[in-house]
């Protein structure tokens, strides 16, 4: 294993790794691949017997690599991943692995699914996905991508870095079950009587920071707040009945390609 601890905690190499990762991204979703639950489960078995030793249970055991979130140093496409796995990375401590073809396909599927064995993930064409995002899906009514769209829901410019494709698909089909607590819509009534709706950006024992419904960054002392409530249901509708499964796959492909750090 490479001297993980120094690279892991050196800002310089972290930046380099990030730049490399970003440079190679975008291509990830170009393959238009589909990964079945069977393949993913097979990949899990390979991963937990082999890869986990260095890459860890969460896939982020090696500096600059986060397998679950599709952050790689030397790979973009599925073909790249297969090459790295079968030839290894001489000098960086990764040995070559001799896997059966189904094992190799499986472990790539497991990585692409973000280690989520509970879903069949289908990743479609990002370009078509973008058209749906801006058009039929009307996603920009609430979401923003690279300065385009509204702000009442989370900015998605980097969502491909922080959500697995499995979680992205789930977000489109079951928005409430996929809403992480940090994104729960926030409603605040201040002691002076002002009502604020928005999204929590940060919070501590004494203060809360939010983006309010009018796009303003607000920071409030909790001592000035009368009530602070988080909604547990997502205001986003399910797209399972609004879009075809092809269109969902394309949207997943597009969202996975959004990797502004």
């Amino acid at each position, binding site marked *: 294993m490479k001297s993980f601890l120094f690279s892991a905690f050196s800002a310089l190499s972290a930046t380099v790794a990030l730049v490399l990762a970003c440079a190679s991204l975008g291509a990830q979703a170009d393959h238009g691949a589909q990964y079945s639950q069977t393949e993913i489960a097979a990949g899990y078995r390979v991963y937990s017997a082999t890869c*986990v030793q260095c890459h860890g249970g969460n896939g982020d055991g090696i500096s600059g690599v986060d397998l679950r979130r599709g952050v790689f140093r030397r790979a973009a496409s599925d073909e790249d991943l297969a090459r790295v796995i079968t030839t290894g990375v001489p000098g960086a401590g990764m040995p070559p692995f001799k896997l059966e073809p189904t094992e190799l396909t499986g472990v790539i599927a497991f990585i692409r699914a973000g280690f989520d064995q509970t879903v069949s993930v289908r990743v479609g064409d990002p370009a078509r996905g973008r058209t749906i995002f801006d058009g039929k899906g009307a996603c920009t009514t609430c979401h923003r991508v690279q300065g385009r769209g509204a702000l009442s829901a989370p900015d998605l410019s980097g969502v491909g870095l922080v959500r697995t494709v499995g979680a992205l698909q789930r977000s489109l089909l079951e928005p409430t079950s996929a809403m992480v607590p940090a994104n729960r819509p926030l409603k605040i009534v201040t002691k002076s009587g002002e009502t604020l709706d928005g999204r929590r950006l940060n919070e501590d024992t004494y203060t809360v920071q939010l983006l309010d419904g009018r796009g303003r960054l607000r920071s409030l002392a909790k001592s000035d707040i009368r009530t602070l409530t988080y909604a547990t249901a997502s205001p986003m509708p399910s797209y399972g009945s609004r879009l075809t499964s092809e269109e969902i796959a394309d949207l997943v492909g597009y969202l996975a390609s959004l990797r502004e750090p």
Partner: protein
Amino acid sequence: MTLHAFIRPLLVLALAVHAWSASAQVTADRLRRASEEPQNWLSYSGGYASQRHSLLRQVDPGNVKNLELKWVLPNQVFGAWQATPLVVDGVMYVTQRPNDVLAVDAKTGRAFWQYRYTNSPDARVCCGANNRGLAMLGSTLFMGTLDGHLVAIDAAAGRPLWNVALGDPALGYSVTMAPLAVKDKILVGVGGGEYGIRGFVAAFDPATGKELWRFYTIPGPGERGHETWSGDTWKTGGGSVWMTPSYDPALNLTYWGVGNPGPDWNGALRPGDNLYTDSVIALDADTGTLKWHFQFTPNDTYDYDSVQVAVLADISFRGAPTKTLMWANRNGFFYVLNRETGAFLSGAPFVKVNWASGLDAKGRPIKTPQPAGSPTWPGNQGGTNWYSPSFSPRTGLFYLSAWEGYASIFRSEPATYVPGRNFAGGGHTVVTPVPGAPAVRIGRYSPLNDWTDVVGHGAVIALDPQTLQRKWTFAQYDVTDSGILTTATDLLFTGGREGYFYALDARSGDVLWKASLGGQIVNGPISYAIDGKQYVAVISGNSLYAFGLRD
């Protein structure tokens, strides 16, 4: 030459001599009687009893609101800064990651020297390039390194004197704890519990680095406790030691917390109790001979390292004068032991616990393993962890940083030992209400808090060792990895990931003062004095801050 011009060089000389003599010897006797010089902070835990209780009285509940920033020492590297500084006669010695040492004027924060140790590229650590501090004996500093060495450093010159290897870094051996100087020896233990090491602690000659004794935390064939392992599992049994021991000079015993067994999460791969993992061991300071042990978590499958600092206190326990050892364990239970014999006196959960339904008469947990996929309280990071607690002889209370409402879903997987590779046998995630969504990460990686009360939160809690009940709770929104300092004026200093530095009333838990320093506080505050002025120092984020009363 005027008289003035004549005298000035003499004054300078006198000051220089004063400064030189002031930075002289930290004798074994001084370390034993550290409480008699509260202006200094001579060892990691501020004294052999590890109470982190300062006898300085200048800052008190009445004037604490007048604390102001005196100086800041910015760090040049990134990542959690877990060190506790030493302060010896006006000079502060502090480590920064990975293995730098700085000597600093504790009055102004201006640096005298910096020593940078270059680690072997073979070094590997599970959880960050951490170093928690130094020991000092005579005029020499002692630091453990990430590549598993012990280094002696000339405290005046900032230059290395000797350097010995404790274990092979390519096999995962490392040192992150601050060593402890006891009499004529330097005591230290090895980390690497996630790499299938065989843990040990050892004593070294401060002059030469010669190893004087070694005690394996995993007993080998023929040794007592070996029967708690099956087959060859002891060879990769873990039992790392990554926190500083405590010491009772009267009993001549050192008290060490021992880490998790290996592999971490698959207990079926190592049937038996797995002594002395997740235990406190009492070792003779001269010989390293085991006097007694007490195991908190037999056959651990939760990574409940028992590396917490043992707090020693002579108290009237339920009416009888007792030499106690108090321990708030990562497994969620608080224990009071007799530190002469290791006998269990009492114990109870201090946070929600469901991995055990309680403790039997001998303090052994009555285990209640949860079904696969179900949450286990406390979670992997524990009800508390390595962050130093404090005991105040004045209030009689034990203070600690706890994680409340925090659970993990553990998974057990096959594991094959490969030298130098992670040997975990499973893993864990925090309980997230969103299946398939990325789980909240355990550490704090930015000024943004992605923890919410859905996952858990931090608190300072004050426990009464007589009743095992909470006296008070100070809740924080984010979790906290801060150590705790109490003072003889009933102040309690602590921090947390949110970057607030607090002075609480040690009797009530009320916030008397706070400073918003911004960076996570993942270390223990200390107090010291120079020229009659008391300072309180803490590391927040990448800077060390020293506060004192407004002039």
